[in-house]
């Protein structure tokens, strides 16, 4: 796949520095610390776009329902999709998806607490992008570090489940600010918890006014349809 894409990024060793070496030997740089990752992320996007694939990065705490959503979406999204599975070192989640007939590739994250663009690029070598329309990346279950890494997807989907509480948006502002879509999952459990959608909306609006919020439950077909519709909205437009 990558023979002609220059993915080793050898040309990128020349940092965009602006050498102003003076007597005090001070060098002004002004350079993004995660620049290398960001370049690789852009490179991943080029792979997706060359194959007309829209890519989505799913992030949440462990257990918020990322894998479950990907299992269920199958019946609602009339698009062919593959999953790059980064949650957990074992291939349990990938196996769950494969059992449903969904193509999934398990990233070997070791003990990593987030995926970076290089790990996703590695996974792209194992997925045939040609026949698919959508690629989901299930990130490591963690509301902190994955927010700092662009992995080369087009949109960020952040899940927050009802049992986690509506205060999490305020507690993890970086993650929720980077979201394009926030899914409040396990809404069927709402009656058992003091969870306020109104409070969620209020916190989210202060931090990320343009975000879309969809309350979902895998037991409510309409809610999963709403997610499928949101995803389909982006077909073909990059």
């Amino acid at each position, binding site marked *: 796949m990558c023979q002609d894409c220059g993915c080793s990024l050898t040309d990128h*060793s020349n*940092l965009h*520095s602006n*050498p102003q*070496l003076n007597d*005090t*030997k*001070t*060098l*002004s*740089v*002004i*350079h*993004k*610390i*995660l*620049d*290398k*990752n960001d370049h690789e992320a852009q490179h991943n996007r080029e792979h997706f776009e060359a194959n007309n694939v829209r890519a989505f990065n799913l992030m949440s705490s462990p257990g918020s329902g990322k894998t479950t959503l990907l299992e269920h979406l199958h019946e609602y999204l009339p698009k062919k999709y593959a999953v790059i599975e980064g949650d957990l070192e074992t291939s349990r989640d990938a196996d769950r998806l494969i059992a449903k007939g969904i193509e999934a590739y398990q990233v070997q994250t070791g003990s990593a*607490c*987030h995926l*970076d663009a290089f790990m996703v690029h590695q996974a792209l070598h194992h997925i045939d992008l040609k026949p698919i329309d959508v690629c989901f990346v299930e990130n490591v279950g963690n509301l*902190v*570090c994955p*927010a*700092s*890494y662009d992995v080369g997807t087009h949109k960020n989907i952040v899940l927050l489940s009802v049992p986690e509480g509506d205060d999490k948006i*305020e507690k993890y*502002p*970086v*993650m929720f*600010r980077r979201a394009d879509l926030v899914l409040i999952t396990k809404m069927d459990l709402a009656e058992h918890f003091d969870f306020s959608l109104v409070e969620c909306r209020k916190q989210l*609006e*202060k*931090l*990320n*006014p343009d975000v879309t919020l969809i309350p979902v439950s895998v037991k409510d077909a309409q809610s999963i349809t709403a997610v499928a519709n949101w995803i389909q909205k982006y077909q073909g437009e990059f």
Partner: protein
Amino acid sequence: MHEYSIVMSLMEQIEQLAQDNNANEIIRVDIKVGVLSGVEPHLLQNAFDTFKLNTVCHDAQLNMQLQPLVIECRQCHHKTELTERNVICPHCKSYDTRVIDGEDMMLMQLEMNAS
């Protein structure tokens, strides 16, 4: 704990810049850390102090400038530095704003000893 991965990226950049400028030692590293960059400053400091030992930064001091959130309002066009973690314009209360600083991690300056 992605602060370790971030310090590794930072060190890689510094090693490259040191090499490009024939420096054998880095004395000071100035970085800018946005309040909404997702990095915990003290964890970053610890990671830097642990990692630097076997690098060109072994005696370097890390200077961290904490960058508050800065927004520009699309309605009243005011530019404001915020103390709160939200993006609402304090002048006109509009939500129609653009974040212009406070979300990035940048390497700003290096002080080095050239050979």
